[in-house]
């Protein structure tokens, strides 16, 4: 509390001129002025160095000796190895196939973001058709395409396949788990809580270890499932537990009146879920679902630990080559840029959706 008369303040500085804007935004207090000067100084030192390394002094020809002679980044590594990094050990002359497969997969994903497809039957049709096409193009064996084993798949298509199908299969499991957790049948409820909390309580790597070491033990002798499927199972279960919690958030946000209204119409449990509750609940949780897809997309890189050749795996194996070993930074930056592109655009999409879906609620 002050008992002194407070002098009127001077009128605010005009924000219209450049100088006025800078005064208001960059130099309006001693602390801000100091921060502005320090950051500007560091950026002026740092940006030229980075630009010089990445662009002006960089070597672009695919020759490691030329790279070693140069002082900047060696984009020649990418120039020489981009096909291996992107497509892994897939038969070299057939690289167009994983490329087309990737386009199909991305097409199906982009298609799923268009509201026209937000109907169960249409979504199902879209994914069945694109999965069959993807299978034909990746495995081959018919239509004159040579057969390519899935142990040879690698790089970006593999990353995308694991992430997209992980989510796709996790979706129904997640819905069931969420419904089970909300149900009033104690046996089912406690099983769902146990499963969700168990998976969410441990790191993904332990789920992957489980699926890669323990799954073969669980199955009868002679049944052999390959590494890709094992990783896929682990990732799917892991994602399902996280999605279940997201869906539960949506279910809990539905007012009780909706459940009661559905009951009073004489709908069965599954009818009311399918026609009344879930469409509303899922719509509410689209943004957090996209967010959990982003984190799962990043997490697919963990399959490298159990020996799959995803995008990170191919980069790692390129920079193990003694010829290119010292250019590890370029390899990692390339992979990071690809991951960044996907994750950042999805994050923007999710942020856009959050604003867009809220518009309808204006009342």
């Amino acid at each position, binding site marked *: 509390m002050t008992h002194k008369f407070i002098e009127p303040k001077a009128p605010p500085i005009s924000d219209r001129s450049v100088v006025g804007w800078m005064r208001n935004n960059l130099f309006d207090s001693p602390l801000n002025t100091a921060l502005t000067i320090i950051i500007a100084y560091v950026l002026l030192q740092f940006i030229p160095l980075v630009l010089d390394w990445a662009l002006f002094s960089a070597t672009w020809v695919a020759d490691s000796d030329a790279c070693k002679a140069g002082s900047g980044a060696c984009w020649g590594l990418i120039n020489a190895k981009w096909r291996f990094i992107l497509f892994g050990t897939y038969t070299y002359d057939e690289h167009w196939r994983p490329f087309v497969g990737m386009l199909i997969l991305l097409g199906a994903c982009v298609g799923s973001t268009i509201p026209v497809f937000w109907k169960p039957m249409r979504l199902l049709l879209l994914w069945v058709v694109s999965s069959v096409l993807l299978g034909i193009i990746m495995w081959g064996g018919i239509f004159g395409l040579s057969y390519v084993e899935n142990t040879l798949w690698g790089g970006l298509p593999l990353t995308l396949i694991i992430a997209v199908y992980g989510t796709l299969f996790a979706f129904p499991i997640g819905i069931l788990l969420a419904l089970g957790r909300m149900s009033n049948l104690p046996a089912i409820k406690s099983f769902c809580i146990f499963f969700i909390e168990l998976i969410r309580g441990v790191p993904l*790597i332990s789920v992957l270890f*489980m699926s890669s*070491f323990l799954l073969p033990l*669980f199955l009868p002798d002679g049944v052999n499932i390959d590494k890709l499927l094992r990783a896929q199972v682990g990732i799917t279960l892991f994602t399902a537990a996280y999605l279940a919690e997201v869906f539960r958030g949506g279910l809990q946000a539905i007012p009780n009146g909706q459940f009661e209204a559905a009951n009073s119409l004489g709908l069965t449990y599954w009818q009311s879920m399918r026609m009344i509750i879930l469409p509303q609940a899922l719509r509410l949780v689209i943004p957090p679902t996209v967010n959990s897809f982003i984190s799962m997309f990043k*997490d697919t890189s963990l399959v490298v630990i159990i020996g799959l050749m995803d995008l990170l795996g191919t980069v790692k194996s390129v*920079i193990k080559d003694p010829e290119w070993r*010292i250019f590890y930074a370029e390899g*990692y930056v390339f*992979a990071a840029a690809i991951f960044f592109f996907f994750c950042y655009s999805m994050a923007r999409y999710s942020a856009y959706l959050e604003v867009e879906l809220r518009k309808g609620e204006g009342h």
Partner: protein
Amino acid sequence: MEHLNDEGVRAILYQVLFVLLAGMAVWYLASNTISNLEKQNVATGFSFLNLEAAFGISETMVDYEPSDTYAHALYVGFLNTVKVSAYGIIFTSIIGVIFGIARLSHNLLVRSVATVYVDIFRNIPILLQLMFWYALIINVFPHPKKALNPFSDVFLTNRGIYVPIPEPHPAYMWMLIAAVVGCIGAYFLKKWADKRQAETGQPFPTIIAGFGVVFGCALFAYVIGGMPTAIDTPALKGFGLRGGWNMSPEFVALFVGLTVYTSTYVAEIVRSGILAVPKGQWEAAESLGLKRSYILRHVVLPQSMRVAIPPLTNQFLNLTKNSSLAVAIGYPDIVSVANTTMNQTGQAIEAILIFMTVYLTLSILTSLFMNWFNAKMALVER
């Protein structure tokens, strides 16, 4: 048959069916596992824990020899997990809060730098970042003989970072105890100050006085303890550096990677926590004539804490779980020790069970804390 139309009867029926199916699935998997294990001649059970581990661990917080048992090796790994997580959580909080506030700054430069930092490091997989930092330390930092020496007695090498530390002395133990006593004192000081302010309106500089009490107690113990000044400085001996505190490249890479990655999430939580406080709260406090720093501390932060603490705890738990990626760069945390154990003994189920139990325990403790906190912080409406 009309019993089947009764909801209560059906509920029981469904559950009996479910339990039967689940039981059959478990029995099927278990019998497969047992027969598979018998074929592979793997004994089940935890008796392997008492066998000699016979592998070395590059960094340990307690004494460890390859001749020690597996149980001890796993304990060493657990301590390493705790160590990197503890440092990670402390630094993540500091960096995250700084960047979270910076993202709300009206200084364009500060805001853009913070936004770029958050957007970049949030959207790149943590594993890739860990591998990058590790490769950077191994390749850019020189051999110990040509160690980088940015400050006197601090050495950056591809064998890790060496910094001087005070030589062990009983006085430091006393300082720690004194600091704890000081904390308790500061707590009572705050209680007294709050009470006096509520009664008389007299404010008290609690923060400065509190730090004064804690540091004063520690300083007092230091002086009483004989003021040890001996410092253990790293120095080049033979082919390597000796002495000082050595942080291995694996530890530094893991610590930096986890801290940078998680701090972007913390920054977003802090930002949305501050934004969650309605503008009217600022304006109401301002119209009461409160100072800006006072508003931030007594009006805005307590309210944003309520929003921010639960997701923050979640991020700290995530950091701890992500520390299991240590296995990819060779830091001996519990997962990588368990991994070595199961490669040597073939006891995959037991080894995985052990580290899953450790993480589960940590998770359950965290959610217990969160429930307690939520109950304590929940708005009490009149």
